[in-house]
């Protein structure tokens, strides 16, 4: 019953300059908080690296005799881990050729591509007031569609890839569309439906990989035949890097989503439905139709991520084809605050963390799980701007757009 301060404005006859509501561009504020969240997360990750390192533990056993030893060991352990992370994600300073040196960067972008499109598949429904937890399932469906076309038919170069990608889009759209339809027709909450459809997709995939249509001849484990060369995304840089055309497609998808949200009638309606469904309905916008459409588009974006997996990096359908991308996509979309640009940047950051984490583990023995902790912490801090502001003592604008994720149950 604590009413918010009723800011009773006095509209009787204010001149335009009498009382100006503060409308500050929150962009700078947002970027700052996001960056500081990253710094904080790395700092806490550093503490975890230090305490889990046996060398540090050994030095700490005589901490009171030689405290500097402990600190030195901790510094050594944290700095080498983060250096390896950087070397694995951006630029390998220990490499002998330039190609080898920048290969980590291309690897980052390769890993980022599916994160970006799947992230868009979560970010877009955010704007329409829906929380799509189902990217994982939609990725799996997209991968099934792409793989089936990819290894079943023999088609000319170009057409084969195109058809396989279209299949991924359609399968993803169907899986997303089911969610939209159930929401629109029955009021089922999209969070529950998408979570459940993730399971359905996972076990559908597991089943398909036991059938003669999908299982690779001569194999007993769940893996499909390798997709034909004609259906694969062409490499962008040559054999030395895994970077493929999918990354360009991901950027185009981000541009499309930006246009959709900011320039198109449909996106306008999505945003209206997300911000105030009653006002949208009153203005003649078909809210239910918007739910179905936005989930279909979201599903096809996630399905596209599935196609990147089977037609780009993995080349075959397996039980682990989605690789948790659908869940990281949620984090990516949250970190990107639901905007296409933010999602691209967040996708690249997470791609870097994933790629670098592997190198970090290989070179310094620091478990890759630290990367997951850092990822989670970033989002945790981003979700609580006042906390970050308090830690760094920045004056808060309070103008940060708090991302509205989902309506209440049954809304």
């Amino acid at each position, binding site marked *: 019953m604590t009413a918010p301060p009723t800011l*009773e404005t006095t*509209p009787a006859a204010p001149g335009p300059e009498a009382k100006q*509501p*503060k*409308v500050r561009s929150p962009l700078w504020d947002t970027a700052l908080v996001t960056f500081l969240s990253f710094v904080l997360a790395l700092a806490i990750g550093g503490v975890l690296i230090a305490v889990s390192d046996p060398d540090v533990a050994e030095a700490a056993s005589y901490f009171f005799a030689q405290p500097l030893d402990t600190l030195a060991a901790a510094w050594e352990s944290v700095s080498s881990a983060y250096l390896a992370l950087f070397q694995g994600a951006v630029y390998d300073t220990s490499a002998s050729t330039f190609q080898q040196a920048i290969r980590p960067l291309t690897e980052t972008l390769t890993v980022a591509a599916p994160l970006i499109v799947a992230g868009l598949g979560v970010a877009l429904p955010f704007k329409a007031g829906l929380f799509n937890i189902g990217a994982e399932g939609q990725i799996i469906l997209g991968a099934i569609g792409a793989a089936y076309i990819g290894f079943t038919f023999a088609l000319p170069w170009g057409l084969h890839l195109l058809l396989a990608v279209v299949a991924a889009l359609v399968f993803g759209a169907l899986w997303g569309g089911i969610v939209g339809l159930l929401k629109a027709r029955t009021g089922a909450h999209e969070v529950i439906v998408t979570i459940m459809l993730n399971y359905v997709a996972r076990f559908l995939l597991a089943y398909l990989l036991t059938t003669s249509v999908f299982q690779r001849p001569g194999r007993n484990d769940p893996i499909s035949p390798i997709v034909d060369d004609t259906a694969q995304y062409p490499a962008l840089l040559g054999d030395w890097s895994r970077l493929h055309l999918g990354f360009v497609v991901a950027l185009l998808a981000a541009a499309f989503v930006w246009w959709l949200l900011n320039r198109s*009638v449909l996106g306008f309606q999505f945003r*209206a439905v997300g911000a105030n469904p009653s006002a949208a309905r009153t203005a003649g916008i078909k809210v239910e139709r918007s739910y179905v459409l936005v989930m279909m588009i979201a599903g096809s974006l996630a399905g596209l991520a599935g196609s990147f997996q089977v037609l780009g990096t993995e080349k075959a359908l397996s039980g682990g084809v989605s690789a948790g991308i659908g869940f990281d996509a949620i984090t990516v979309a949250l970190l990107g605050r639901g905007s296409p640009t933010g999602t691209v940047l967040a996708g690249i950051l997470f791609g870097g963390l994933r790629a670098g984490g592997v190198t970090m583990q290989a070179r310094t023995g620091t478990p890759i799980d630290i990367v997951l902790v850092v990822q989670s912490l970033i989002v945790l801090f981003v979700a609580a701007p006042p906390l970050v502001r308090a830690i760094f003592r920045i004056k808060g604008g309070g103008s940060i757009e708090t991302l509205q994720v989902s309506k209440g149950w049954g809304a």
Partner: protein
Amino acid sequence: MKLELRGITKRFGSLVANDHIDLTVNPGEIHCLLGENGAGKSTLMNVLYGMLQPDEGQILIDDEVASIHGPGDAVAAGIGMVHQHFMLVPVFTVAENVMLGYEYTRSLGMLDRGAARDQVVELSSRFGFDVDPDGMVEDLPVGVQQRVEIIKALSRDARVLILDEPTAVLTPQETDELMRIMRGLADEGTSIVFITHKLREVRAVADRITVIRRGAVVGEASPETTESDLAAMMVGRTVELTVDKEPSQPGPVTLAIEGLHVFDEAGRALVDDVTFDVHSGEIVAVAGVQGNGQTELVEAIMGLNEHVVTGSVLLAGAELVGQETSAILDHVGYVPEDRSHDGLVSSFSLAENLVLDQVSTPTYSARGSLRRDVIKNTSTTLVDQFDVRTQGIQYPASSLSGGNQQKLVMARALSRPIDLLLASQPTRGVDVGSIEFLHGRMVDERDSSTAVLIVSTELDEVLALADRIVVMYRGHIVGIVGPDTSRHVLGLMMAGVPYDEAAVQAPPDDVDHEGPVVDGGAL
């Protein structure tokens, strides 16, 4: 108990909501706080009730400084508040609501419902409230729910009672009853702070009047002050209380509603066999107390109703029942009753809100893309034409005051040629200046031979605008009467009394300006 506010100042950022306000409420006095929406009345009362902390100033109770840091302190100090929106649990009984938060307990923490019941009965009989302690709150009429709120405050020994816009939800008769109760309480020594913007009520019940404008006290007045003087104090300039309009020149029937029913899930008729016409060039006002089917009637016309609708709504000969809202909006300008819930997307810019219901038409879009230049130009023009006070069309609608938001909604409704303007509560929660403007625009629209249908619970508004008045009660039409029907007769009709009986019951001095029955007793 004597209550005194000294130099209360409350700022929100650069906005001074309360500017050194001094106010004294004597024991047993009904002190009326008069001011427009947004003048700072609610802020002041929230300060008094401890929900906001003042930046400067003191609250004195019986000449001693009181420190009030929360509603708990306020209640302990003997201050009770009846909010505009009731703070009751609908599925609890009256007695349970009254003891909520201050539960009487017996041993082992058992609730003592009996004691709570006894207290309700005692207070109820002492002040003539007529409230059943075992009644479920959700089943009670609004007027009775309000009395439950008052009992709640009194049960906590409130000696100062704050009533925040208490009459907004009441029929004229319920309002009279409330005033009788207020007078009774005051006679027993309870001080009452009565917050309102309705001039008639102020003059009827107040002992003293303090007028607030833009966060500051602009003066005191006695109940003898005329309404136009009070209005001038409140607004800061002379105000036209009546709408200047020529007699209507009705053309052919534009909107013909015939046997319209709306049923809820349980099959109850929310709108019960409603039949009436609106001619072009005519303003028809649907009068009635809130919740008597007006909302459902409007939603049925607009194709927004989720309930079952039967009957016929013909607009210029075309059937609207069963049509999509977007198709209906091609011919109807619509001002929904709750602008923040249904009218505006508050995070959207002014420009986006101005095209919200037309965005998919060729005017504002081409090949799926928004025509941003057209949207920008049209919005700029509309903001200008409708005197929306803003810094620019790119600012969010939430940055506007209530009156300007309402002008924005009206601008959208009138942004294109329409056959019918359907405005529900067109000036609710809007400042006097904007009311004048909005009324003027609706009359202009009538004069350009559009059919205008207004739904309003404000009798003043109905009387000021209507060429014909349709009175609704419990979903059906009590009668259709002329604009010069007396206030008292309309009040009775709003309570379900047919015109013939109402005219007889009306006090004699009212009968002489009783209007001719246009379509009396039509059901």
